[in-house]
């Protein structure tokens, strides 16, 4: 059996194919550039949700600070784009041409040293992942090596998200403050605001998402995936089976951070700016709900969850702005009380049996009993 085939079971290949078909063929042909760009934006949250499935659903590590990594990834990309937009010619009216406009407004007369490397696109691509992962690594080493988990981890990540927001807003000369880094124009000379670019970014985003999905699936079906479940249920048992539990948690948390960072970078490219409002407490906890609605144990669910909640948010807040918070609040309660396995769980309970029955005549081979933990 070749490894690639081994990666998904037969039915999962079908799910994967359906998802790819929807994202690559259906959405682009159904929606105009504007709506497609919106979907692209929603998909950037799918990266975060995917990371949360691994980290929270499987590993039991609830992070209320995914916005930190999403934001850092996005900021790294935004810094590069901002520098590219701040050529001396484009910023000739400033007191110090050649530096980002917000620095000039804050009487900063030369580019801070830590901005310098972001002139390089290669470095930026590297930093987009490396900076968030490094922070995730520091946080997780400090916490997991000392066996801090569960609720404490959630609260501390939330506090870090709060700190980072205040810091970004407070250091506006270096970060653009509450406005964020705005007015991004080109990527390597190519206008990112054009319809054309938006199409391209959408497809890059989809491609990256599908690759991430395969990576997540690889982890899920590997022994690592089973270890995550084992750690979630009986951490001590895993430890006394000879595993250094902290290392596994650190790895999965860093991976989730990396996925969030990719999402953040794609967000910046598609939306055209980055601001502290995607770093803080509220967006971070909303990201958890994307994952929970999709099904905290389903990597496919994560993607649908992010799409569904965001689409609902856009349309509900358009038509019934008053209702939106009620709906969102109800959603949080419902995924805890009524359908803890989210959309994926509902699908497995109600729809999959029908499909299985329908196709049972044609079916070849054994269908495994659906099991929540492994799906």
């Amino acid at each position, binding site marked *: 059996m070749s490894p690639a085939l081994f990666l998904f079971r037969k039915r999962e290949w079908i799910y994967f194919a359906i998802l790819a078909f929807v994202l690559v063929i259906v959405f682009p042909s159904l929606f105009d550039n504007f709506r497609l760009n919106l979907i692209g934006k929603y998909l950037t949250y799918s990266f975060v949700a995917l990371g949360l499935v691994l980290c929270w659903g499987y590993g039991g590590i609830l992070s209320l600070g995914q916005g930190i990594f999403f934001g850092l990834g996005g900021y790294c990309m935004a810094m590069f784009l901002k520098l590219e937009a701040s050529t001396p010619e484009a910023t000739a009216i400033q007191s110090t041409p050649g530096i980002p406009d917000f620095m000039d407004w804050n009487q900063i007369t030369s580019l801070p040293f830590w901005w310098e490397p972001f002139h390089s696109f290669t470095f930026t691509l590297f930093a987009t992942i490396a900076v968030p992962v490094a922070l995730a690594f520091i946080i997780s080493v400090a916490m997991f090596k000392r066996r801090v988990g569960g609720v404490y981890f959630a609260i501390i990540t939330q506090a870090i998200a709060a700190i980072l927001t205040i810091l970004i807003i407070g250091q506006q000369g270096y970060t653009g403050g509450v406005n964020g880094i705005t007015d991004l124009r080109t990527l390597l000379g190519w206008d990112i605001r054009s319809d054309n670019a938006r199409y391209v970014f959408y497809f890059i985003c989809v491609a990256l998402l599908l690759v991430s999905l395969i990576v997540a699936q*690889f*982890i899920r079906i*590997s*022994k*690592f995936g*089973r*270890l995550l*479940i*084992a750690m979630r*249920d*009986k951490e*001590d*048992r*895993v*430890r*006394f*089976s*000879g*595993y*250094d*539990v902290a*290392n*596994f948690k650190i*790895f999965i948390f860093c991976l989730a951070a990396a996925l969030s960072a990719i999402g953040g970078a794609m967000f910046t490219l598609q939306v055209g700016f980055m601001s502290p409002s995607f770093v803080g407490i509220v967006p971070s906890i909303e990201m958890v709900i994307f994952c929970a609605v999709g099904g905290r144990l389903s990597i496919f669910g994560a993607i649908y969850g992010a799409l569904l909640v965001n689409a609902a948010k856009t349309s509900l807040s358009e038509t019934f702005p008053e209702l939106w918070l009620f709906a969102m609040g109800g959603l949080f309660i419902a995924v805890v009380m009524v359908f803890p396995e989210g959309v994926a769980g509902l699908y497995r309970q109600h729809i999959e049996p029908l499909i299985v029955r329908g196709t049972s005549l044609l079916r070849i081979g054994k269908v495994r009993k659906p*099991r*929540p*933990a492994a799906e």
Partner: protein
Amino acid sequence: MDVEQPKEFLLSIEGLSVSFDGFKAVNDLSLYVEENEIRVIIGPNGAGKTTVLDLICGRTRATEGSIRFRGKELTKLREHEIVHAGVGRKFQNPSIYEDLTVFENLELSFPRGRSVLGALTFRRDAEVINRVEEIAEMIFLKDHLETDAAILSHGQKQWLEIGMLLIQSPELLMLDEPVAGMSVSERLKTAELLNTIIKKHSVIVIEHDMKFVEDIAHRVTVLHQGKVLSEGSMERVQSDPKVIEVYLGH
């Protein structure tokens, strides 16, 4: 260098103490376990039995004293390193992964791919499958390999956890109340299982069930208030007036 430990002692505990906020749960305890021995630790509630196991396997850190295993000081190692050194531990309540199958439970305990990278590249090859099946046979779960661990009976869960230890091939197994909650027939089978096990491993057992203790024990250690009260064969311990005082007095 320390002098080589006397050959006959697999595990030697000396002067071990631990206190929780002033309360000495284990107090200057010394205990020696030989190779291929079944040692049963008994004692009234709160005697510090489980704490001793916790101390050996690194779950609790000793305040003072030493624990040497094959000449290796365990008190300085972290839990997984102690496991790597060859000490396996079963908990009082069956501690298994309920969301996984029996096969997966055993597979995860198979001593390979214990690093992050190792776990990612781990392949379920013939060696693993054979070993899992072999152990499953020993623990009477051969026919339940694809069963979710959650739906096993209480006794089967206990066996599964013992199996998870066995697959690690530890030199020393520590079992905390392995027959608690088992039916009579399960209990007999467990005794049989333990008797197979000691052919290759040393075992420390904590047990309350005196009948069972009689069935398996080579030597018995009685703990009381964190100290060794009495030690020796079952008969000797049972006739020790100090033991009778502790169990029957007050």
